[in-house]
C-alpha cells in the first residue's frame, strides 16, 4: 500500500441549516462543483424550531471532507457543520417492501420473517402487503434477497440517518452558537 495516498472512507456530514427554498441546491453544488458524489442524503426538520438537519454521506479523504465542511459552514443559511466516521456514529436506514399478499400468505412464514429480520407489517390488503424494516445496509439488503423470489413488487430505502455517539447534543451547541455570536457582528 502506498502510504502517501490519503485514505478515502465514508464520512457522515451533519449540517444544521435554516429552512429556505433553494438551500438544497446550494448545499449540493458544494459537492458537485468538485465532482464529488453524494452517497446518501437525508434532510428533515430538527428538534429546534426553524432548523433543518441534513445527513450527507460522502466517500472521500479527511482533508477533502474538512474543506467541504468549511465551505458548507460559510453558506449564509448554514449554522453548523460536523463530520464523523462510521465509528463515531450510530446510523440506520428505513426500508419498505411491497409483496403480493396471496403469495406471502401461502408460501412465506410471515412470523419467521418478522422475527429473523426485525420486520414489521405496515399494511395488509387483499392484493399486497407492505413490510418495513430498519437497519444498516446489509440487513435491509438481506430481506430483499429473501422476498425477491416471492415477487417483490416495490422496494424503497430511505437515506441514512445518523446520531453522533459522543455529541453533547446540538441543542446545547446551538444555544451556544446563538448566544456567542450576536455580539460578534458589526
Amino acid at each position, binding site marked *: 500500500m502506498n502510504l502517501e495516498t490519503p485514505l478515502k472512507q465514508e464520512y457522515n456530514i451533519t449540517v444544521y*441549516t*435554516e429552512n*429556505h*427554498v*433553494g438551500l438544497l*441546491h*446550494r448545499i449540493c*453544488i458544494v459537492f458537485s*462543483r468538485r465532482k464529488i458524489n453524494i452517497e446518501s442524503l437525508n434532510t428533515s426538520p430538527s428538534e429546534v424550531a*426553524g432548523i433543518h438537519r441534513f445527513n450527507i454521506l460522502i466517500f472521500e479523504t479527511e482533508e477533502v471532507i*474538512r*474543506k467541504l465542511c*468549511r*465551505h458548507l*459552514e*460559510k453558506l*449564509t*443559511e*448554514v*449554522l453548523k457543520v460536523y463530520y464523523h466516521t462510521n465509528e463515531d456514529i450510530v446510523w440506520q436506514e428505513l426500508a419498505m417492501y411491497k409483496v403480493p399478499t396471496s403469495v406471502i400468505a401461502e408460501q412465506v412464514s410471515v412470523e419467521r420473517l418478522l422475527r429473523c429480520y426485525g420486520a414489521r407489517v405496515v399494511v395488509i390488503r387483499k392484493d399486497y402487503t407492505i413490510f418495513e424494516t430498519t437497519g444498516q445496509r446489509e440487513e435491509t439488503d438481506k430481506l430483499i434477497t429473501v422476498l425477491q423470489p416471492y415477487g417483490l413488487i416495490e422496494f424503497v430505502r430511505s437515506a441514512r440517518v445518523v446520531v453522533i455517539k459522543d455529541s453533547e447534543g446540538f441543542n446545547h451547541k446551538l444555544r451556544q452558537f*446563538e448566544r*456567542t*455570536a*450576536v455580539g*460578534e*457582528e*458589526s
Partner: protein
Amino acid sequence: MDQKEIKKISGSVAIMEALVAEETEIIFGMPGGANIAMYDALYDYSQQLKHILVRHEQGGIHAAQGYARASGKVGVVFVTSGPGTTNLVTGIADAMIDSTPVVCITGQVAAHLLGSDAFQETDIINISTPITKWNYQITDASEIPSVLAKAFYIARSGRPGPVLIDITKNAQVQFFDYCGYEKCNHIRSYRPKPIVREQYIQQAAELINRAQKPLVIWGQGVILGRAEQEFKTFIEKSGIPAAWTVLGAGAIPSDHQLNVGMLGMHGNYAPNVLTNDCDLLIAIGMRFDDRVTGRLDSYAKQAQVIHLDIDPAEIDKNVSTTIPVWGDCKETLPLLTALIDKKEHKDWRRKFQSLYKEEIDAVIHAELNPASDELTMGEVVQLLNEFTKGDAILVSDVGQNQMATIRYSKLNHTRSNVTSGGLGTMGFALPAAVGAKYGAPERTVLAIIGDGGFQMNIQELGTIMQNSLDIKIVILNNRFLGMVRQWQELFNDSRYSFSDMENPDFVALAAAYRIAGKCVSEREHLRDAIKKMFEHKGPYLLEVMVSKENNIFPMIPAGAAVSEIRLK
C-alpha cells in the same frame, strides 16, 4: 416615515424605499418587460436615486463593481428577466471571486408563470446560486423590505460578495401594508466574522518575534477590511518587508520603503524568489490563489505560515498554516502589533533590494527605456505616472495591459487599483471605469485596456457619452491578443493560433460617440499626447500603438515554483 404608521404602497415603491434607506447613491441598469414597474417607481425617485442607463447588462454589473471597489459601498444593478439576467452572469462570477459587494435586483415573470417557459423566463436563481453569496426570489411584495435589508447586509458584511434578488412582476405591482424599512444586522445562521482567539494572536506574535527572515504577503482583505492604517502600523513596527497580490495593490503606497512589490506569475522577482527563502510567511487577507503560489508542493515549504483571514474556509485551503488568525484584520492587526517587537530586519531587506536590482537590470530598465523605436507598455504606464503623480484610480483590463499597468503604475492611495483579479474578465475595464468615476467623482479615473478587451464592452462608450463622464481611456494596441500570443510564443513554438487581430479605427469609433481622441505611435509624440488627454475636459480616448511582440517578464511558467520565476 413613522415606523408604526402603516401605509399601502406597491412592491416597486418598496424597492425604492429600501434603496434610499440603504443610502444607495447610484443604480446601473437596463429596463425591460419584467422590471418596467420598478423603473416606473424609479421615475418618482429620481431626486434621491441616480440611475445610469448602461448599454449592456454586463456593463451594468461591471460598473457596479467598479463603483464598489472605488467607493467601498455596495453597487446596485437593475435588470429585466431572461437575457437581462443571463447577461449579468460574468459580472456576478467576477464579483464573487473578487469579493465585491453588489446587489443585483432582477425582474422576473409573474409568479403564476414560473416554470411555464414564459416569455423571457430564465431560472436565474439556480443559474446564479454557485456564483452568489446569497440569492432569493420574492413572489410577494410584503417580503421586499426584509429581504432587501438582508441582501444589503449580506453583500457588505464579513467577506463581501454579490447578492441577487429576483422579484416577480406581480410582486412589483402588488400593494401591501408597508410599515417602514428596518436595516438588518443579524441573521440566525450567519456569522460574518469569526471570533478572534487570543491564544492564536499570542502564538503568532511569538513566531514573528522569533523570525529572522519574515515576509508579509497581503491581499485585498486589507482594503475590504478598511485596515490600511492598521496594516501600515503593523509592518512599520515589525520592519517586515511586504509584498502584494494583484488585488492588494495600493493598500500602502507603491513607494513605501517596506513595499517589496508584487507576488505571483508576473510579479516582482524578489518577493517570489524569497517566498521560498523566508522563515515565516505572514499572509494577510489573501487566499493563496494559484497565480500567486505557482506550484503548491514547492511553495514556501521551508517557512512557518501565519494566515490572517476573515473567511475560515480560506484557512488551510491551499497552504497549511502554522497559526491561523481568524478574524477581521482591522481587529486582529492591532492586537498583533501590540505584542510584537520593534525591528528593522536590515540584512534581510537588503536581499530584496539586491534581487530588485537584478530585476531592474534584466527586465525593468529595458522595458522603461527601450532600445528600439517601438513603444513598450511599461514606458507608457511610466509616463502616465508622471501626470497622475500616483493619485489616479487605475482601471486595467486583462492581459499584458493589466500586468504592465499593475507592475509599473504608481499608487499613492488605497482603492486606486480596479481590475478583474480572480476571474480575469476581459471587457471589465471600460464599464468598471464608469462605475469607479461615480464611486470617486473627485478623482482622476484612467482606464488602461488592450485592443482585444476594449472590444468586449465597447458599447459602454455610449454610457460615457450620454453622461459626459470624465474618464481617460488609454488603449495599449499591440494588434494581438497579447497575453495569449506571449504564451504561444513561449510555450507553443510561436504558433500564433487565432491571436492576431485586425482592428477598427478606435479614434474614429470614439469620435462616432462624440468622444475626443488621438492615436500615437511615436515616442516623441507620446508625452504631448498624454498631456493633451489630461488637459482635455471630459472623456478622452488615447490609442497608443505599442510593440506587437513584447513580453511581460518576469514570469512564473504555469506549473513551476515561485522561485523558478524567469527573468527572460
